[in-house]
């Protein structure tokens, strides 16, 4: 069908033009010119419409969001209050995830492009063979799938278990074994064919499959990559146990954590996790650290267990009593059943403080404490919900902290049973990867890999063959010819394509949604397994909120995201223009 419309390739112009002119000879030139002009207007109209729509899009978002962008928006965490919500952790999360994505996608993508373009096996009639390769390749895949299905159907759910010295029990589903076996058989068959039958045509065959496969991957929806990402990276096919308790981990140091009577935690380094090392009972001559991994040691004084317990219970009990009494006294000033805003004037504030303080026992100066608490309690007047909760905590914390400071002269250990905790170094690595930045970055890598490969292929294709031939003629090997001539010349093109691909990764939300959406996180990722929030997810979450304030900060978030993207794109354009100037 397409063939019919096409001018036939052999004599390119004659038939189509002659037929068109033959048909049109009766038409007047002016009618044709009018048509020509009309088409120009249509073209301008369409282009104008496209530009108009995209302008409206950007403008409407800009107008909605620009008022909400300020330094605090960049510095704050996400919040349930749209006026204080910010993008800090999401922005950092996006940057780290995309950095991992770039660090993996670029070598993999450029390498594959080099394989396809520069190590293309020499043979005639490439198209024909790669078509056959394509068919056989998919046939082999289907065969493996059928095998998996029939075996997996009968025994796939069965969990196999064996133990390795030093690692412990490894459990996995039988279907995984079938898969591995299938791949091994597949690889072995290939090896045999390559080695014993026909080297060059087999290489060509593999080459054809790789090349076709990449073109076909380019259209796979990102949400499908998300599903692959979860299984391949987050759970790693269940090969290394559950995500919460992986089999392998490095970069972890273990501590026993003791909670002191002063409510501070103290740490003593131990050699392994809970099930490997016995818990250490507290002893006076041990060295404790104020923080895990810190060099600052503290010396602790121990009281006999029962005496320590008594002291601890007494201070906690007394502070609890104060806490309860204060809450009750404040609730009494509120509406029905202690709901609604508090109504406190100067006199009631004093009454509340007296009532609450009477419930506790004070070793710090009660008169001074009372003097300090009264204005704090008075400030609760008219507050409700979150504000009331905050103000009330300020009162409690003021009193309790002062009392602790007064009573505790030495640090006393009471919780003799420590808690085993760990501290993860920046290079912490565990298998399976879990839902952290590493899995996120690798999942996005899957999404952009075809784009990077195709762009790098185009860039390599654009390098004149004479570069490589010159190098080869002078005795260079293929790789030398590629790495010293073609690749450097293709770098601007590769950079441009790669940057556009990475900017796609920055904006992808669907695969991360499948991986597991984190809406609120207080910390930026500290290591590659750490959880993260990402800008597009954050925007998605805000856009779904019915509160209009969130619509505005969603728009503000979009502006930030677009600024990041535009600066990336500007870089790509700059590289390309520099490159074209050089040529």
């Amino acid at each position, binding site marked *: 069908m397409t063939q019919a419309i096409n001018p036939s390739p052999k004599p390119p112009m004659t038939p189509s033009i002659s037929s068109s002119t033959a048909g049109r000879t009766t038409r007047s030139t002016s009618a044709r010119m009018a048509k020509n002009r009309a088409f120009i207007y249509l073209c301008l109209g369409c282009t104008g419409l496209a530009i108009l729509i995209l302008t409206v899009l950007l403008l409407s978002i800009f107008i909605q969001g620009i008022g909400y962008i300020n330094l605090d928006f960049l510095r704050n*965490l*996400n*919040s*349930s209050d749209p006026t204080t919500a910010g993008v800090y952790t999401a922005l950092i999360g996006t940057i780290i995830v995309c950095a991992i994505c770039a660090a993996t996608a670029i070598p993999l993508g450029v390498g594959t492009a080099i394989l396809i373009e520069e190590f293309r096996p020499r043979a005639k009639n490439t198209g024909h063979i790669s078509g056959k390769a394509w068919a056989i390749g998919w046939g082999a895949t289907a065969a493996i799938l059928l095998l998996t299905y029939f075996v997996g159907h009968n025994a796939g759910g069965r969990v196999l278990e064996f133990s390795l010295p030093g690692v412990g029990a490894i459990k996995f589903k039988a279907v995984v074994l079938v898969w591995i076996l299938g791949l091994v058989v597949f690889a072995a068959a290939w090896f045999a064919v390559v080695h014993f039958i026909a080297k060059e045509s087999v290489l060509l065959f593999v080459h054809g499959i790789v090349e076709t496969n990449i073109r076909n991957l380019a259209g796979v929806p990102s949400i499908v990559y998300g599903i692959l990402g979860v299984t391949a990276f987050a759970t790693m096919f269940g090969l290394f146990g*559950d*995500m*919460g*308790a992986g089999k392998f981990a490095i970069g972890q140091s273990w501590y026993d954590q003791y*909670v002191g009577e*002063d*409510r*501070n*935690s103290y740490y003593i380094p131990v050699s392994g996790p809970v099930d490997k090392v016995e818990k250490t*009972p*507290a002893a006076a001559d041990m060295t404790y650290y*104020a*923080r*895990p991994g810190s060099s600052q040691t503290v010396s602790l004084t121990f009281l006999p*267990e029962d005496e320590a*317990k008594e002291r*601890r*219970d007494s201070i*906690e009990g007394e*502070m609890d009593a*104060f*806490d309860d009494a204060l809450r009750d006294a404040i609730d009494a000033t509120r509406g*029905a*059943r202690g*709901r609604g805003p508090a109504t406190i004037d100067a006199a009631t504030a004093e009454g509340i403080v007296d009532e609450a303080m009477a419930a506790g026992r004070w070793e710090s100066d009660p008169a001074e404490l009372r003097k300090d608490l009264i204005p704090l309690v008075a400030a609760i007047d008219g507050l*409700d*919900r*979150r504000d009331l*909760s*905050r103000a009330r*905590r300020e009162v*409690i*914390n003021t009193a*309790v*902290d002062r009392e602790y400071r007064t009573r505790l002269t030495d640090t006393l250990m*009471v*919780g*003799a*049973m420590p*808690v085993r*905790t760990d501290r993860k170094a920046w290079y912490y690595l565990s298998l399976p990867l*879990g*839902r952290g930045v590493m899995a996120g970055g690798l999942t996005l890598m899957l999404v952009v890999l075809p784009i990077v490969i195709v762009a790098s292929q185009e860039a390599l294709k654009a390098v004149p063959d004479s570069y490589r031939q010159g190098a080869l003629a002078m005795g260079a090997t293929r790789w030398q010819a590629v790495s010293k001539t073609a690749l450097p010349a293709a770098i601007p093109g590769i950079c441009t394509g790669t940057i556009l691909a990475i900017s796609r990764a920055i904006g992808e939300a669907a695969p991360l949604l499948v991986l*597991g*959406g*984190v*809406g*609120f*996180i*207080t*910390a930026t990722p500290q290591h590659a397994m750490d*959880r993260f929030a990402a800008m597009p997810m954050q925007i998605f979450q805000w856009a*779904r*909120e*019915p*509160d209009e304030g969130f619509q505005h900060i969603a728009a503000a978030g979009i502006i930030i995201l677009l600024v990041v993207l535009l600066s990336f794109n500007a870089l790509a354009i700059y590289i390309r223009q520099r490159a074209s100037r050089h040529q």
Partner: protein
Amino acid sequence: MQLKTRLQRTALSLGAAAALAVPAAAQNLAGEIIVDGSSTVYPITQLVAEEFRADGNEGVSIAVGFSGTGGGFKKFANGETHISDASRPIKKSEVDALSAAGIDFIEVPVSYDGLTIVVNRNNTWVDELTVEQLQLIFLSATADEVTTWRDVNPAWPNIEIKMFIPGTDSGTFDYFKEVVAGKEGSIRDDVTPNEDDNVLVRGIIGDRGAIGFFGCAYYFENEDQLKAVAIINDAGDAILPSTESIEDGSYNPFSRPLFIYVREDALDRPEVAAFIDFYLDECPELCEEVGYVRLPEVIYDRARANVENRRTGTQYLDANGDKVEGPITEVYQ
């Protein structure tokens, strides 16, 4: 040797004491708390986490996800999370998965979520509905007979009923289905379900014959755009949803409790214990900030006691694994 045993025994009894409520912010808490689960509970947990952090706990890193109650329990059973948000009590299959993974959990109710039945503001005929009328409107058994408001009540106009309901995999839908359809019935299939409450709000605003339901939180936020319908309760009174009527239990049967489920062994960690303690102390104020309704104080007290005594398991399944139904003040002990 003897000394060690003695120390350990004392330590065991003290270990429980260490988890006791610390009245105020602990000083140098560090570590990581990972929460995931229901997007309905998410706003509460997020706000509590924000406030906990503002209360001098910057050292504790908290991540809150919203992958749904089911997705949350899946991660909880994988050992990926410490706390799981749930907009419904845990199900038998999920309890089984958790016990297979060797994870003990403590059930902590945190607030009420009232389910509001709403209609378009231009709907002049409906002010109150009975559960039976809702069954006529929503059940598949009557899907053929009831298509307009007149089919529900002959006094009402002949306007097509358009139904907007929360996503069929949401806890809100489960709850509505349980109340209206029971175990046997089912919701008709020509309704418009959507995960996004915003969609529902807008859908109902846009259609005069619309009826829908969703969490009170969203109703309270969009009060001026929608009309809530009073529901005839078990005492025969028409009750509109409000913080008072939900809390005192007169707004029934459409109010449900929300939960968090905490890993028992995570409570050994001071930061998790402090977080849960903070959650229970401040939840009554904070859940109202995000549009939910606080539970009766006695429930929070029971929850505190259950956390303190490490009472594991759910109280919404009986010994045979059957669902226990009833108001939370009776079920949750």
